């Protein structure tokens, strides 16, 4: 744990930055951009589920909240992104903060249900309100990224905006976890009683974790809205939550690099399934079950350990908490 640990996330993202060198087709760039967006969602969700151990299944609601807030404000009311970004983030922060209160009252399976219900409420409300929120059809005239006079035209530019967002999100989250914030999150996961015994206030801790995670997932939603320039309720339902959970589990729950890798892998793999339309639920469900039974730790921790021992170094505790 001593010595500056290089950012694993940054290393992987640098590789992903090279994608446009291989292909400039709009379709491939869209897939890659979505993969990066989901990487941010997965990392935010990982903070709540994997690092802090809270059984929250409301991920798609935060994702959708961030997306819809900016879509409505910029698409319907013409506000500039300089305004809609902070608003989206604040909205998600507040909702996250509030969602922590159920987490203080109920745990595990019960909390899973409550958060699922919250997610359902969100999707229902969004679909039922035509007019401003676009109803079931969604909002179609969301502007692209723009700052001052400049507007991002073309998939390539938008892809790099997303990439910058992913880097900022990934590195900042990694650093947060290597600090007191990360210790508190892992503390409430490993032992709530133990956490209390070192003076951690559970209410403050959980509200912090949920709020911060909400902000990251909402940020991903913001990026999604302006990347796709279209939002609809269908993208933010249970399927998306399950997809995100699969990404975390496959990559390695609790491990930020795992969430990143899981998101990239599960976003890109279905491309090979494109020929077998309709196979997605079977594939994702099956993969989730398989990983949990065979490799419950997830891909990244196992790969990291193998690499470490083959390079002759003793395996350290991943996701180090003390940044020295």
């Amino acid at each position, binding site marked *: 744990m001593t010595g500056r640990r290089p950012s694993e996330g940054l290393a992987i993202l640098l590789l992903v930055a090279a994608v446009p060198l291989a292909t400039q087709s709009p379709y491939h760039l869209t897939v890659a951009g979505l993969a990066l967006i989901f990487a941010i969602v997965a990392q935010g969700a990982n903070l709540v589920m994997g690092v802090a151990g809270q059984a929250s299944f409301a991920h798609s609601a935060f994702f959708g909240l961030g997306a819809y807030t900016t879509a409505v404000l910029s698409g319907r009311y013409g506000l500039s992104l300089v305004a809609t970004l902070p608003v989206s983030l604040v909205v998600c922060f507040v909702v996250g903060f509030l969602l922590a209160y159920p987490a203080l009252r109920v745990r595990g399976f019960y909390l899973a249900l409550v958060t699922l219900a919250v997610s359902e409420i969100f999707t229902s409300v969004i679909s039922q309100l035509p007019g401003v929120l676009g109803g079931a059809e969604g909002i179609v005239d969301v502007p692209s990224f723009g700052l001052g006079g400049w507007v991002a035209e073309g998939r390539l530019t938008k892809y790099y905006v997303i990439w910058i967002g992913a880097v900022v999100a990934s590195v900042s989250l990694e650093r947060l976890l290597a600090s007191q914030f990360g210790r508190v999150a892992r503390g409430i996961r490993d032992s709530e009683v133990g956490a209390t015994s070192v003076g951690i206030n559970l209410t403050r801790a959980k509200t912090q974790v949920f709020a911060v995670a909400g902000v990251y997932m909402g940020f991903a939603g913001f990026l999604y809205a302006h990347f796709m320039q279209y939002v609809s309720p269908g993208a933010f339902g249970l399927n998306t939550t399950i997809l995100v959970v699969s990404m975390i*589990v496959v990559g390695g729950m609790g491990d930020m690099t795992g969430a990143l890798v899981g998101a990239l892998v599960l976003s890109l793999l279905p491309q090979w399934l494109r020929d077998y339309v309709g*196979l997605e639920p079977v594939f994702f469900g099956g993969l989730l079950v398989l990983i949990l039974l065979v490799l419950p730790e997830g891909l990244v921790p196992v790969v990291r350990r193998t690499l470490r021992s083959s390079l002759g170094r003793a395996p350290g505790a991943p996701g180090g908490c003390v940044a020295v």
Partner: protein
Amino acid sequence: MLAILTVGLATFLRGLMILVWGHDVFFAPPLLDGPPLRWRGVSIARANLVLMAASLGVLAVLWLAFTRTLWGKKILAAASNPEAAKLVGIEPAATRAAVFLLAGCLAGVAGALVAPVTFAYSGSGFHFMLKAFAAALLGGIDRFEGALVGGLALGLLEGFVAGYVTSAFREPFVLGVVIVALMVRPSGLLGSPAVRIT
């Protein structure tokens, strides 16, 4: 972990259903033909009578099975203290498997009973599951009567909300009420509150 595993299984099964039946919506014929029964100005569809009778019947059988038979008591024992159960010759893994099987069958029966009243498609499972869990938690998950009370409460609440508050938003509204109820009383209406100590 187990929760996520079952989510994965459910997704896998749903995927299989999509492969077999696609995304089509199906309608099943009603359980009982004939005009609705009238009693003192209230009209009750025959099919609903079947549903009510079936629910009560299942509840009665479950209650008898778990309180009066050795089989049921073994399951409760293993749930309460797996180690102690092993010491008296009960295998918790077997009881867990039995319960899973039973729960699955009950869910299937419920689905079959409900299909004529609403419609059926590959995603209908989640929708009902959410309400079913909400009903079970609202009533109190450690007692059978809890599910019954919770279901009734939920159904009545939804009806009232649809009639007097808002029809389009009745489901989010009811879910919201359930969330608040669980926060106020996490153990549900009939459940026994847990004591919080170390």
